């Protein structure tokens, strides 16, 4: 899923400072699962903002909504009749959802209420961790199912570097060395022969370095 963290309330208050009425829009997708942008968070955030603005002597009117998904046009369309009645939308969906809404409603300022993070997993309740950088050319079959691009702080393809100590990465004691994990998995899969092979230079053109990416599925259009 796509993860994120709430923006500091002071930053949000500064963003909405010019406005007297706004929409706070959540999303039932990833951000609901990682508890940063679902309907509950919409309610809590809206109440906090109302209270803060009331305390500052300038009330704000807030309409609360939560869309099925902010990254699909069909769920955005129902907002069209009323979106222009508000001065701005504060969205707590991921960066993709926020942008998509901005593209659809040209006259309404869109404000980000969260900092979008990474493609990750729920390691346990309240803890999420990155697993994939969407590099566009997956190599997990060669690396024991552990991603060198994401799990190694240097994204190297022939690790571990000289900074790997006791399974931890040189970057921080609480980060596991991705290459130690790869080797552990390769060993338990009896696939260490994969380690000994020189790997070709990564084609980062399949990643964001090739410019903004697009997937076109003729069979579905």
């Amino acid at each position, binding site marked *: 899923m796509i993860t994120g963290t709430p923006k500091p309330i002071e930053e949000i208050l500064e963003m909405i400072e010019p406005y007297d009425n706004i929409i706070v829009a959540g999303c039932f997708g990833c951000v609901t699962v990682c508890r940063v942008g679902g309907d509950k968070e919409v309610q809590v955030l809206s109440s906090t903002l109302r209270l803060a603005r009331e305390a500052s002597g300038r009330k704000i009117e807030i309409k609360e909504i939560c869309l099925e998904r902010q990254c699909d046009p069909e769920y955005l369309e129902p907002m069209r009749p009323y979106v222009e009645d508000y001065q701005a939308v504060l969205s707590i969906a991921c960066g993709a959802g926020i942008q998509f809404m901005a593209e659809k409603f040209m006259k309404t300022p869109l404000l980000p209420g969260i900092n979008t993070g990474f493609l990750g997993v729920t390691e346990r309740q309240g803890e999420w961790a990155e697993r994939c950088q969407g590099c566009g050319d997956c190599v997990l079959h060669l690396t024991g199912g552990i991603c060198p691009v994401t799990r190694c702080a240097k994204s190297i393809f*022939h*690790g571990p570097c000289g900074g790997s100590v006791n399974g931890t990465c040189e970057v921080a004691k609480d980060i596991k060395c991705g290459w*130690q994990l790869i*080797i552990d998995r390769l060993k338990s899969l009896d696939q260490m022969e994969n380690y000994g092979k020189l790997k070709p230079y990564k084609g980062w053109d399949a990643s964001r370095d090739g410019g903004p990416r697009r997937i076109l599925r003729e069979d579905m259009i």
Partner: protein
Amino acid sequence: MKSASNLERVLTAGHFAVTGECGPPRGADPEKVLKKAALVKGNVDVCNVTDNQTSVVRMSSLAGCMLVKQSGIEPLLQMVVRDRNRIALQSDLLGAAALGVHNLLCLSGDHQKFGDDPKAKNVFDIDSIQLIHLVKTMRDEGIFPSGEKLDGVPRFYIGCAVNPFADPFEIRVPRLKLKVDAGADFVQTQCIYNMDKFKLYMEGARKQGLHERVKILAGVTPLKSAGMAKFMNRMVAGIDIPDEVIKRVADEPKEKQAAKGIEICIEQIQELKEMEGIAGVHVMAIEWEEKLNEIVGGAGLLPRPVVEQ
């Protein structure tokens, strides 16, 4: 000869090689490099010039190399893949070769989080092993890795670094083999203090015949004090100083600890000299270049041989 390198000539002639190191300053003052170089001169076959080590911004390695060269010492260019993509790497390599740099060390580079600019973006377009492959392709095939022909071939003696003390230990020899397969001519190791572990490493390397395919230069760094030893052991990832080594320094009164550190370093070099498969030493007298002559001389490695081209 694959290259125009003095290090290659010394090693090929069968001499026990000595390399040293010069860290460029945190500023634009060339005198700082020239002063260090004067202390290094005559004590080494080539002198490494580091590339923004520990991600702290310094004068560029190539500029440092030119100053070292001006001083009459053959420079060795360290190059990390942290700060340059493959376009910049290839371009800088061509520039270095054009300016008469014949020795290269291919490195990953410490993560930028260790330096003054932890918010910098890192590159890591290719890794250090792929950089070895890249340079070798340019040198031996006369083409860029993209396939285009080179107009003038850089003739580097290609080196890399290895840390036998990083984890997991069992992968250290296989990783050295990857570097040799990629095309490394020589390797310089991380500073060795744990001799027992290093012997095990060398045993593994010899079993695979790697010592015959690559020149292995053993890294040493004299300990200035027990405090420095403890600090390095605790703070620097992949440094392994056994307690008995620290104790030998710590048992001395403060003013004699430095001399003990040098004595231990000389002993280490002598032991390494006898080890099968060790072709030379890399003496990293970091910010202590004035002791290089005493160490190299003490180990009986002076004067340095002159091998004609």
